[in-house]
């Protein structure tokens, strides 16, 4: 059967690719600038082999031309890439070429994957607390009322229990609204002394905006022993925050109210961005809010089976996103969950 021009051209293209491969195999590592240029001319030059085949396109039926064009492009791209890759080898990184090394030319970096910036922060926080002999706590993201609220001294009519704040699931379950639920579960499994850091996803029914997302991360720590006091809480948080921000910081406690601690406080660190001169991030106050902390409420201690007459516990629960945002000057929390590589690969 006589070959149609279409099949003929296809055949020629295929042969051309094989030819190049064979030639490259033969050359092996002996590729220098000269050979590279030669190859380029032979295959891709104005009067090169590919150009020659292209000229025969006229013979093909016009109906076939789009299909041929497509194949032709693929082959062309393949050959171009193959030869361009050789160019890389003769350029930066290789000394076989004759061209002198150009230090300003980019190196060829293998493709790098990275952890999500939130995960990076989580791992950093784990590492800090593990250095302080804390244990890592883990728990379910679907919770019941007991661990998420009751055990934490949040009675049924507490405002935080409103549907507005909590994602409700069938069977009286919910998505945990705070990592303290995990702390409660982990405490219950152990006897004091305990030191636990629990980090994970938490959920609140907040519409997404630049400072809210319906899912976010918290790190929640507790330390229960016979002689734990609020000065320890402050000392611990000061140490940890300086490590997280890799900076000397001033810290302060502000009165606040969280049902699971008494006394309770809001914990602020000096603004790392303006050094307390006042900037938009700290809203001119010189302080950055990190989250809530305090001494575990006796009811909470009782609820996890501890004797509040014998032990005290320090506790804190902070957002993970916030320190990441401050550290990298990220102004919109939603960026974390859009998973745009142009964002993720910056960290």
């Amino acid at each position: 059967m006589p070959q149609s021009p279409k099949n003929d051209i296809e055949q020629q293209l295929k042969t051309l690719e094989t030819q190049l491969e064979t030639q490259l195999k033969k050359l092996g590592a002996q590729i220098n600038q000269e050979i590279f240029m030669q190859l380029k001319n032979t295959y891709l030059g104005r009067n090169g082999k590919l150009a020659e085949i292209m000229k025969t396109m006229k013979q093909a039926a016009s109906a076939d031309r789009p299909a041929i064009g497509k194949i032709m492009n693929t082959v062309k791209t393949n050959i171009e890439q193959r030869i361009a890759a050789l160019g890389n080898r003769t350029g930066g990184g290789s000394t076989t070429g004759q061209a002198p090394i150009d230090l300003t030319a980019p190196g060829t970096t293998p493709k790098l994957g990275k952890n999500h910036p939130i995960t990076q922060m989580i791992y950093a926080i784990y590492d800090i607390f593990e250095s302080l002999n804390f244990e890592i706590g883990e728990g379910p993201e679907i919770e019941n009322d007991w661990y998420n609220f009751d055990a934490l001294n949040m009675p049924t009519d507490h405002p935080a229990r409103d549907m507005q704040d909590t994602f409700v699931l069938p069977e009286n379950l919910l998505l945990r609204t705070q990592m303290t639920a995990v702390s409660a579960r982990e405490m219950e499994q152990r006897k004091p002394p305990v030191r636990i850091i629990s980090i994970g996803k938490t959920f609140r029914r907040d519409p997404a905006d630049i400072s809210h997302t319906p899912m976010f991360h918290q790190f929640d720590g507790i330390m229960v022993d016979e002689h734990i006091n609020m000065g320890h809480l402050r000392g611990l948080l000061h140490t940890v925050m300086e490590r997280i921000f890799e900076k000397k910081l001033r810290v302060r406690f502000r009165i606040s109210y969280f049902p699971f601690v008494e006394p309770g406080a809001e914990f602020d660190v000096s603004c790392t961005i303006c050094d307390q001169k006042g900037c938009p991030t700290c809203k001119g106050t010189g302080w950055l809010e990190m989250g809530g902390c305090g001494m575990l409420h006796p009811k909470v201690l009782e609820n996890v089976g501890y004797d509040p007459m014998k032990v005290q516990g320090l506790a804190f629960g902070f957002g993970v996103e916030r320190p990441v945002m401050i550290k990298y000057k990220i102004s919109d929390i939603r960026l974390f969950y859009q998973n745009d590589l142009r964002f993720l690969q910056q960290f």
Partner: protein
Amino acid sequence: MKISLDWVKEYTRIKIPTPELKEQLTLRSVEIDAVTDFNDMWKDLLVGEVIAVRKHPGADKLSVAKVDTGLKILDIVCGGRNLAPGQKVAVALPGTILPNGTKIEAAIIRGQESEGMICSSEEIGLMKEGERHILVLDESAKNGVSLAKAMGITQEVLNVDVLPNRPDLMGHLGMAREIAAITGAKFMPDKHKLPKKMKETLALKVDVPDSKLCPRYSALVIDNVTITDSPAWIQNRLRAIGLRPINTIVDLTNYLAADLGLPFHAFDYDKISGATMKIRASLPDETLVTLDGVSRSLPAGTIVIADKDKVIDLAGIMGGQNSAVSQTTKRIVLQTAVFDAGAVRKASRLIGHRTDAVALFEKGVDGENTINALAKAYDILKEQNGDIYLDRVIDEYPKKRQARYITFTEKHYQTLIGEPIETREAGGILEKLGFEIFEKLTSGLKVSVPSWRPDVKIPEDAIEEVARIQGYDSLKEGLPFVPLKLYAKKPMVLLKRAASRYFTSMGFQEAVNYAFLGKSQLKKISANESMHIPLQNPMNAEQSYLRTELVSGLIRNVESNLRHTESVRLFEVGHAFFPGAEGKLPQEKTLLTALITEEAITFYAVKGIISGFFTALQRPDIDFTTTGSIYGQRGTTASVMHKNTQLGDFGLLTSTAMKNKQKNLNTWWLTLDLNTISELEKNHPEYKPLDTYPAVLFDVALIVDQALPWKNIEELVRAGGEGLVGTIELFDTYIGEQIPPGKKSLAFHLNYQSLERTLTKTEIDPIHEKIIHELTTTLHAQVREK
């Protein structure tokens, strides 16, 4: 909550400058969000007197006023509908910048020169008081005086973010007590007493069948009231805290609420039919048109007040229109009551209407103070309306509050706070906050808790009171001495970290997606809604289910990233949620899913990534079996197995699941069940001696049936190798023209190796030939010529 420092000064001296007060309050009592300084905000505004008004010659809706500003008489064009000669008004001279940023200039308005502006309330940062109404000041205001001074708003107004446990800070009196305690100033609450004489001619029966709904109901029946404008001082105080003056009675209730933190309400006595009020839970299908003109159907459990015929009040939320005070009202029932906080909050939420009263009730109001508060209300009203008289006092309070006592000890304080304190000092602080010392103990105190502090219940609460007023700032920092312990690390914690190390090293970028997804995403991956746990209160349709896989989220990520990049490797580690079996709790699994969109990626590359993962983890050997998947293309999908347990799956996504716009891009997924993998025992490798003797290398190419698994060849070669087969490495699989249909060509390197000696060709050749023979006979392989 807005707190005016002018108002606070009625109860205490403010000894420190406002910026310091703001900081001290924020640290020790309550966060101050913002401070409004009217002196500064209104620094260019002054009082003017309208001497004459004439119509603007060129504009119907405008007038030209002659305004005396003390020094100069100005012509000002004004659009205020209520403008009239004799009024005292707020004047902005040219050059003034109004709170909203507008700069006032002298201008020609429709051919008429205007030398400034007469301001409306909203133009100077107050609540709007009427459509095209100018603000009219008290006639006693002196021309040319600064506006802030004339209105008696010379001190700052604080924006207070009251914590849910501090109802006492919802009023000026309570804030003054707090400020006094912090600054060491004297706190001077006022005292009021109701007149002893009452007329008792107006009957009113108040019935509270369930005192749980309304623990205390107090009210005055006041006769001979005239409804007019409130005196300027009340109006201006309300304005300063962001309220709009309305009339004598409404202003009075608003004023007292802001003063004492108690919600007040006034009924028109004559609109209460049958002279009875019953406080009860709503009945099915009851409705009420509230003061704002909205008809509201009342959910079950709403506390209401009803007269003989109808509901007249949404207790604790808002009054009804049918019993509201109007311009013609003569007799009022002035009420301040305690309604059940939980019921009020719940009803407010169900109705979808939140008011200042709700904010007060849900924190818990001070039921001990109702009669005092009513006495103050009566005194204020009497001052402006001398003809009124008290007809009757109602006070339904069946279960009186029991005094609550708390023991404070120095030792407990030091244990919890870490600093010593002297009883004398602690007692002083508690007394300033209104606690009473009931009994002195050795190194301690028994105190009674004031009625306005429902949040103080246990000794730790009293310790917090002392510590915060002392200042958390004085806490000495330290790290505790603790017994060290070697903790067992959770397998899952270790595995997640190892997995992310491996996948990032393979060039995968980690993503984090929401745990929820919507119908459209489920449809894309052909997943069944009923297999997903639904959120009962999702915020939008795209977030209505909990995910059971991580694939669909990553598909979205890949799709959006392909708009600006050519290839994507993403992975995510996260929980997937499955409904529990009948009566069982839902299950959560930790999954790892990765997606690869690249040009040259093959089944074997993905399989290799998975095998490499298990090698990196030192987990046992795994197997692969073919399986189907709802989002995988037929013939490309496989399961990762260990014995009979499935550890994961992978394959090429169907074009429904993932449409690649670019020509030759394919997207592969792989999912690993980290829960199951974390339970596998580690496969501790055992050292094998390195080969020191050279190997004999053969390259073999076979043509076999396409269906013949490589594993069969490998096993056969090893079995026939008399223990001398080293590595077997498949390096090429080929199907094409030179191969008969239905067959494939496999090429592999075969190494013969001994750990004890150098092998010779003569030794190996027979073994190799025997193996080749086995391959051709047992597996019907055909040896390919090279």
